[in-house]
């Protein structure tokens, strides 16, 4: 994990001190809210329905046990004993007092954390594959490049006042677990014809009001040229991005208005015309220095199978189900990645109590090389666990009610906070999510349904990624009533597709029964148990499912 140097630490501490002064001036009346708002947003502070909300950056979703425990402490000391992990791999606290946020920032600085790049029209927290460094299917670990982009983009003066927020994701694996095709810029590490590793650069993806799949603007750019090429993209965006209309200000609108070819031409021209002194050329020793922070842990040489694990699986069907659904293949024999689904029945997706955070920290420290990841699906992952230790990890999770065995299944849904918390939302998300989870209360039925991604957003801003769920749900306001539009056919992986709205919205209480009918129809029609809903829809079209959706609505 990247470690701060003395300059990083000084900067983060000075930033906390600076914000303390700004808060004091605000509360004395020396700063008006309109002047203070941009300052608080740059420190991750929003004003939501019930209170201030404080969003903390977790770069590329990676935490140590020490950092996780500090988040738990912040949940207890300043909030209500829980936090909410987000689709940007960050965490947010919903009940914090403005006057106490400077103290929380200082506590974060103690563990090399902050709230920089969590709000405002800047390059936001860079996200990545939650299995980075562990995945058997990755080309190489993408985290050093996430960190390099983070350092390049943080406080870069040209990116401090972009037309709108800007989101970058990096992955080095297929399948794509980082949803790179629905980011402002998605970077997919790949080899060129000469066998050199570089990046495919996708630009103009995004969700929200106007969803787009990113377009490949460069099939391959070298590591050496990456930052200069990104900078060329940012300059074209800064030059032409709409500042007169926030609904048209994202780069996806620019790319689509200019057209792919013209956008590419302008970026290539900008890239070619950069002066030599403008090029952001990273010295190899600097790349090596950063990469060293992400060196693999000291894995043991182990057998590919664990007799202890196999025996435990044979003895406990609940454990067997959990291992089937929540373990991910690891690149090192004898190891696995453990997916901790924060989606037990009836809980807000992504919420974790301080006690649960400490359990995750303890597990990572004892069994997982002190490494925890936040997945954009609002779950946690301990990426390096010995197969022999899996029964003990499960026992610890079970004791903390963190053993939901639904990773990647129907009840492991993505949901934004919705109208229960969010000042922008039109409709509740969490209560709909909980009613849908209840459809899968029978684990055998949920297993029988298999992989299914259901994503819910409480408004068009799409924080719940509804466009790219196999089933997407969008909450809308209709003359003061909550209605929910249903989308089919979305996906966020390497075959990323925007789902299609099926028709009139459903009332809150109609959503779960309607989805039950759709799922029943899917099980009748799928070619095999491994065919995902999105694939069945590709094969048969959406009509049979739409018919089921509205069958008795």
């Amino acid at each position: 994990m990247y470690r701060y140097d003395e300059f990083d630490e000084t900067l983060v501490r000075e930033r906390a001190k600076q914000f303390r002064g700004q808060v004091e001036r605000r509360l004395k009346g020396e700063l008006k809210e309109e002047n203070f708002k941009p300052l608080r947003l740059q420190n991750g502070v929003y004003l939501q329905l019930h209170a201030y909300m404080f969003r903390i950056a977790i770069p590329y979703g990676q935490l140590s046990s020490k950092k996780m425990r500090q988040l738990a402490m912040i949940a207890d000391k300043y909030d209500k004993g829980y936090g909410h992990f987000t689709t940007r791999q960050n965490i947010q606290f919903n009940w914090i007092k403005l006057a106490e946020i400077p103290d929380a920032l200082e506590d974060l600085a103690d563990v090399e954390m902050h709230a920089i790049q969590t709000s405002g029209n800047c390059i936001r927290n860079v996200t990545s594959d939650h299995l980075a460094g562990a995945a058997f299917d990755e080309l190489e670990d993408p985290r050093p490049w996430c960190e390099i982009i983070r350092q390049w983009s943080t406080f870069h003066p040209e990116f401090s006042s972009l037309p709108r927020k800007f989101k970058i994701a990096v992955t080095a694996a297929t399948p794509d677990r980082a949803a790179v095709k629905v980011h402002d810029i998605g970077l997919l590490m790949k080899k060129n014809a000469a066998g050199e590793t570089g990046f495919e650069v996708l630009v103009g993806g995004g969700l929200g009001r106007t969803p787009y799949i990113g377009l490949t603007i460069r099939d391959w750019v070298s590591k050496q040229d990456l930052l200069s090429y990104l900078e060329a993209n940012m300059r074209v965006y800064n030059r032409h991005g709409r500042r007169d209309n926030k609904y048209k200000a994202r780069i996806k609108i620019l790319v689509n208005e200019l057209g792919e070819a013209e956008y590419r031409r302008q970026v290539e021209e900008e890239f070619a015309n950069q002066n030599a002194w403008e090029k952001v050329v990273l010295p190899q020793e600097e790349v090596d220095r950063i990469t060293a922070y992400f060196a693999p842990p000291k894995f043991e040489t182990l057998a590919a199978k664990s007799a202890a694990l196999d025996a435990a699986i044979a003895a406990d069907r609940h454990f067997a189900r959990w291992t089937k659904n929540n373990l991910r293949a690891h690149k090192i024999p004898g190891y696995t990645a453990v997916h901790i689904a924060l989606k037990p029945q009836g809980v807000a997706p992504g919420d974790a109590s301080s006690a649960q955070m400490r359990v995750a920290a303890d597990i990572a420290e004892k069994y997982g090389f002190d490494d925890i990841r936040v997945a954009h699906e609002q779950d946690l992952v301990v990426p390096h666990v010995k197969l022999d230790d899996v029964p003990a990890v499960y026992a610890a999770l079970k004791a903390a009610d963190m053993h939901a065995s639904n990773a990647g299944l129907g009840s492991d849904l993505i949901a934004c906070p919705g109208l229960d918390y969010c000042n922008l939302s039109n409709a509740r998300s969490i209560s709909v999510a909980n009613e849908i989870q209840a459809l899968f209360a029978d684990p055998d039925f949920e297993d029988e349904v298999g992989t299914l991604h259901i994503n819910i957003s409480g408004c068009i801003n799409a924080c719940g990624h509804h466009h790219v769920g196999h089933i997407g749900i969008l909450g809308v306001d209709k003359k003061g009533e909550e209605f929910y539009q249903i989308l089919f056919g979305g996906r966020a992986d390497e075959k990323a597709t925007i789902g299609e709205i099926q028709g009139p919205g459903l009332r809150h209480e109609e959503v779960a029964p309607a989805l039950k009918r759709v799922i029943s129809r899917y099980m009748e029609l799928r070619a095999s148990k491994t065919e995902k809903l999105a694939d069945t829809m590709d094969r048969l079209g959406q009509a049979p499912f739409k018919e089921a959706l509205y069958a008795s609505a």
Partner: protein
Amino acid sequence: MSSERPKLGPDIPKVITGWLSASGRVVYLTKDRSWSEDLADAEVLSGPGALEVLAWASKDQTRATDPYFMQVTPDGKVAGRETIRETIRAKGPTNHPMFGKQAGNN
């Protein structure tokens, strides 16, 4: 992306609501120009004079932030197309009955 609230005509009964600047708690403007956490204490406004009260409230930034009109019935109960939102603001999140004003611990 928009947190703008619906425009309310002068004849619609309304109260002024916002958030305490220091804590973020939801509050309502009372007749004596203080801010109460209890909707029952709010002054129900109507007529063109309400705009002047809102203008005053907007300047009271040390105490309260982002005040706006919220529709109510003539006797001060939440009403109108934002009933769900404002009921949640007044009581707390529906998924977390242990939090918010409904639990007395906001």
